[in-house]
């Protein structure tokens, strides 16, 4: 699979690059961002996958999140894919900002007309890691995942559905229980159909209840003044309750004054990178 370099900027001693490739899962050209820390010039590095939220592309994270200094310090490669397939010309894909383009929800769609292209789950968990490991100095055993909002939901489900694959997981304002919130219900019914039992496979709260595998250590930051929190889109309490029940280690921090924006992400990105580094560099 050929990679085309789209852009490269020196940043924090390393390089922030953007590549484009022809995706086999998504059947379209996809861009993704890769940050290569200074360590990557000489050694193999661990990889952290960042999943962005609704309406984002591969650009938002690399320009607004302030992750490069932390990544350089800890010698971690950060890969940030796009949030959905682009340019597939599917009818209705641009109708809403919370469904279709920029709102892949990290599922493998089963419903038409989405099922051909909207396979973000497979893209993120299979295709992308293979691509990254083939083209960059990575340690394939050292992978972790994180994300914001919809991407937070994506990070959580990827970790819960693949015990042992990700050495660390964290999230910013994740959608914890999509089956119970308007966003999730809209997306799942569109991508997965009316049968709610098929939704369970992509719901972090449900997955946590039946999780069995290596011990997790989940760090979640949530802005207290997040409008979507108060709009009951995120529902962290549900996840916490289940994790308390099932003894899945979570540290959930409610940050006063913070909202849903990248300003919030920026403020706590270092803590998350440290959290990942602890496990990736162990």
């Amino acid at each position, binding site marked *: 699979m050929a990679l085309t370099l789209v852009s490269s900027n020196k940043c924090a001693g390393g390089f922030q690059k953007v590549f484009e490739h022809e995706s086999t899962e998504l059947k379209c050209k996809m861009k993704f961002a890769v940050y290569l820390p200074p360590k990557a010039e000489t050694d193999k590095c661990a990889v952290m996958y960042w999943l962005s939220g609704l309406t984002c592309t591969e650009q938002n994270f690399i320009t607004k999140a302030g992750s490069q200094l932390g990544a350089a310090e800890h010698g971690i490669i950060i890969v940030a894919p796009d949030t959905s397939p682009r340019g597939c010309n599917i009818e209705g894909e641009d109708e809403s900002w919370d469904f279709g383009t920029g709102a892949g929800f990290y599922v493998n769609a089963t419903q038409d007309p989405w099922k051909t292209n909207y396979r973000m789950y497979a893209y993120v968990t299979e295709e992308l890691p293979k691509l990254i490991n083939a083209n960059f100095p990575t340690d394939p055993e050292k992978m972790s995942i994180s994300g914001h909002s919809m991407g937070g939901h994506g990070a959580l489900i990827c970790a819960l559905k693949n015990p042992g694959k990700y050495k660390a997981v964290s999230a910013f304002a994740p959608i914890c229980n999509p089956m119970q919130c308007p966003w999730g219900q809209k997306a799942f019914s569109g991508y997965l159909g009316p049968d709610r039992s098929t939704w369970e496979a992509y719901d972090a709260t449900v997955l946590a209840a039946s999780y069995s595998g290596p011990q997790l*250590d989940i760090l979640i930051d949530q802005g*207290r003044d997040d409008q979507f929190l108060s709009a009951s889109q995120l529902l962290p309490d549900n996840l*916490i309750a289940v994790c*308390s029940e099932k*003894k899945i280690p*979570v*540290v959930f*921090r409610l940050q006063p004054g913070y909202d849903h924006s990248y300003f919030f992400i920026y403020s706590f990105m270092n803590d998350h990178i*440290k*959290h990942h580094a602890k496990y990736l560099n162990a």
Partner: protein
Amino acid sequence: MDLYEIRGGRLGVIAEEAELQELSRESTAMETYNVGSPPSPTAAEDGSDGEEDPFKEGETEGEIILIRDQLQEKVAEMESFAGHLEEIFLTVEENFGRQEQHLEQHYNDVLQTLSQRQDESAARLEEEKKSKLEALYGQLLACGQALDASKELIETAQEVYRSQDKRLLLKTVMPTIKRIEEFAKDEVDLTLSTCLEFNTPLADLSDVKTMMDSINVVPAPSAPVINPQMPNSATQTSLRVCWSLFSDDTVEYYELYYRPVLEDTPADSTFTPQVSKVTLKETHCTVADLLPNAQYELWVTATNTTGISPASEKALYMTVPSPPVIKQRECSSCPEAALIRWESGNTNPVDSYTVELREMGADGTESSITESIVAVPTCQCLIQLQPGQRYLISVRAVNIGGPSDRSEPISITTTGTFFYLLEDTAHPCLSISEDGFTIFYGDEELPISAMALDDNTFTRCVAVLGDLIPVRGRHYWEVEVDDGTEFRIGVAYEDTERNSYLGANSTSWCMRHILSPSRHKYEFLHNGWSPDLRITVNPVRIGVALDYDRGTLSFFNVNLEQHLHTFHCHFQNYVHPCFSLDNPGALTVHNSIEAPEYTFI
């Protein structure tokens, strides 16, 4: 005195003694050999007897060893005896030499005096002779004059007689006859004016006599010179005193006096400490049964047949102090250092302390190298150490007399941070286990009387502080609790308000666990404020990591290696670990743990 005779005589003594020794040795040997047969008086001849007899296996082995040991003892005794004798020889020679000199001088003095007397007497006689001669000569002259006068008279008379001139004769004959008559009447003193005998008065030789007498009398000795205290010659209870003679005095024996010097002289000097006395022949003495860390006044007199010398100068000696006692519960350590505290071990002050440390190898062997820190002025010492080692540390007290014995050592391991709890900060309701690391908050109500009158204890929060070593660096410890314990654990400044709750003020930072009917709640408190956190797995073993340089205090769930929270604060002063129980329960502190890697990322 013929030296050789003396020597020979003494040697003769030795020879005899040696023989005796040999005999006695052999006889004891024989005694053990002749098991069963009686010991013979002239054992030397009977040497052969015992040989065949009891060469019983095993028994003789032991006996042989016994004999060998005895022989070795005897040999040692002999050697020391010989050494002793040599000393005596030398002393006798010295003494002899001195006596000889002494006599020479004495007699010289006497001779000098005598010749002086002789001169004096001779001079006097000369004088007398002269005066006698003068007197006689004077007399002689007078006689001569008288003779001349008479002669002249007679001639005049003869002339007158012979004179033809009768008229002149008649004129002068009468006066002349008168003159002759008068002259004849003059008595001529023909007695010698002086006696012809010389007066030789008895020479006053009394002082010569005393001088002669005193030759035989040895003068009383002059005051000995007592030496100042030699370093390292004193022990806790004894002093080694030495002195010497000022001149070549003969001394029979010495008397050493000593008494303790009291710290405070009482107002009425009725109570004076007793003076003790030791009589001895040597010029040194080890005085025992003394008090440690005490000053003593010592002086010595020398005595011989004539009398006692004046006392020497009084010397001040000091016994070495008693060893200090390390306060085990007040010592703390971290990977780079240890703080040792001790009690002086002496009622009176000492000059300083010396701290000694030796590294212990992994196999328990002690290093032969001891590092010493001298001139420690107070009863505590912060020592720099290497991380990951084990040390044995002991303390000595030092005064002018020297260093005390080593105190009982304390073992310090520079793995992780180690501290005990500051028990006198504990709230009265808090009890601490025997080993000092578990605290209990019991159910029982405490009587009011038990409530602290002490400034140092916590009065509201049932808390206690830990005695963290005052070293800025990284420290790590763990706290074991159970699910139901409501606790506060963290750090606080030493002067944190004792009537306040941990975390409620600006001088303390802590993690708090609250048990509510529905769930567990966790807070990270400072200044009464906590972030809003949820923790899904309740930590039962909490790691606390303090980093002074980075200004962080972090909490971890040790079992999950999960980071819980970090306070960011520049700690102005040193902080102490703090622990409190908000409901009846217990918690245990674990330290001396090497901080896991993830704690200081």
